[in-house]
């Protein structure tokens, strides 16, 4: 019962929390660049303005795909916060990504196409690590159910340090932060303009933003799982790791997609799979 309650709370509150996080993110980034920065509520202003604007769409399917992107993001998050199957969550997340790619690819702009290609490459870079993370989380409770993982009375991050590291690495990709803001970036000073979102305008862009906020909360929830045995540790740890992401964003140049794929697979293979194998034998030995 409490699972459904938290799922409903997620659907209602995730946009608020996600927007606030985005606002704090922008403010902190500005302060790191020695600027004053926008107000914390700036993302909401942007969102409401975008909804208010004229909706210039390039073809009819675009809206369908974008709705799919938003809906499957919410589905993934709802499943997660309802304590559902972690594998299903990851697949729903991947599906939502595919919808975004389809939306961008349905436009005619070459920037949008390249953005879509790069988004696919990024997903390809992320997926192995996400699956390894799911397997790692399975090992202790012997269940993919999020509620069972939450119930584990052990500090998971001590058992899964490699996997946590790998997850944080791909988190940078998922949050579209430097050095991996390949397909689109917060500020459009890159060679493919706004990349995947180049052709979306007005309300359509607002939907993309909203979906990103849902996604952010879901990803933060995943990190929370690693510290879930003690909420007093988990909340500060999650916030701390997010701040670390902002710091990384501000101290790195954008790298190329080759580098992204190679490095994230290497980390998935070494840190993720290595951790998995060690833990497996460790548990088999009866600790």
């Amino acid at each position, binding site marked *: 019962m409490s699972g459904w309650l938290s799922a409903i709370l997620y659907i209602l509150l995730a946009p608020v929390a996600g927007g606030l996080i985005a606002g704090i993110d922008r403010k902190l980034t500005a302060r790191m660049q020695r*600027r004053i920065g926008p107000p914390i509520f700036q993302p909401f202003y*942007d969102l*409401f303005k975008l909804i208010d*604007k004229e909706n*210039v769409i390039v073809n009819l399917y675009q*809206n369908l795909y974008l709705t799919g992107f938003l809906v499957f993001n919410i589905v993934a998050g709802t499943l997660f916060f309802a304590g559902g199957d972690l594998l299903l969550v990851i697949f729903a997340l991947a599906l939502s990504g595919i919808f975004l790619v389809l939306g961008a690819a349905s436009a005619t702009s070459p920037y949008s196409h390249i953005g879509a290609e790069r988004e696919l490459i990024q997903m390809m870079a992320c997926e192995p690590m996400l699956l390894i993370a799911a397997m790692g989380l399975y090992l202790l409770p012997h269940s993919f159910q999020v509620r069972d993982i939450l119930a584990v009375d052990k500090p998971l991050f001590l058992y899964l340090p490699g996997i946590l590291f790998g997850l944080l690495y791909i988190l940078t990709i998922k949050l579209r932060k430097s050095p991996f803001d390949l397909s689109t970036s917060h500020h459009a000073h890159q060679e493919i303009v706004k990349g995947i979102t180049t052709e979306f305008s007005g309300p*359509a862009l607002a939907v993309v933003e909203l979906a990103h906020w849902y996604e952010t909360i879901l990803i933060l929830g995943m990190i929370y799982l690693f510290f879930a045995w003690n909420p007093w540790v988990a909340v500060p740890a999650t916030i701390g790791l997010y701040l670390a992401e902002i710091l990384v964003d501000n101290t790195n140049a954008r790298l190329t997609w080759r580098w992204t794929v190679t490095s994230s697979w290497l980390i998935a293979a070494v840190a993720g799979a290595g951790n998995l194998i060690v833990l497996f034998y460790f548990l088999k030995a009866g600790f």
Partner: protein
Amino acid sequence: MSMFKRSPWMVHYDGASCNGCDIEVLACLTPRYDVERFGVINTGNPKHADVLLITGYINEQSQPVVRQIYQQMPDPKVVIAIGICATSGGIFSECYNTKGGVDSTIPVDVYVPGCAARPESIIDGVVKGLAVLETKRAAWRIERKKRNRVFRLPFFKPKASPP
């Protein structure tokens, strides 16, 4: 209340200027002036922008480009001409390749004087432009209501893309 005042996204195009105003437009983004305080983002993508900043005058080659950028921007939108060249051609008005200021090609809402325009005056111009944006939004909403009486989610309302 609308949020246009709080979140004007801009796109910048260099018509045919000497670069002086362009780098001052960029300087507005940087820590000393920091227009992001007012929610301004330099999107670089006309489809996301509300405010079009144009520096320099218009010549044969840049005319279609400016026109296209203007058409790509979704309503409501504001055009701000930065610097004296964008206003009238300035020192280059006697050159053979001049079409005149930006208003020879697209309607301009705010003119920012100066050669080169200082970042302070550019920010001032953008703020003036926001008031115009607000009136344009009101007019545009009335027109939109007339166009579709039936209530539909704005998100599902298709509209042909400009050529």
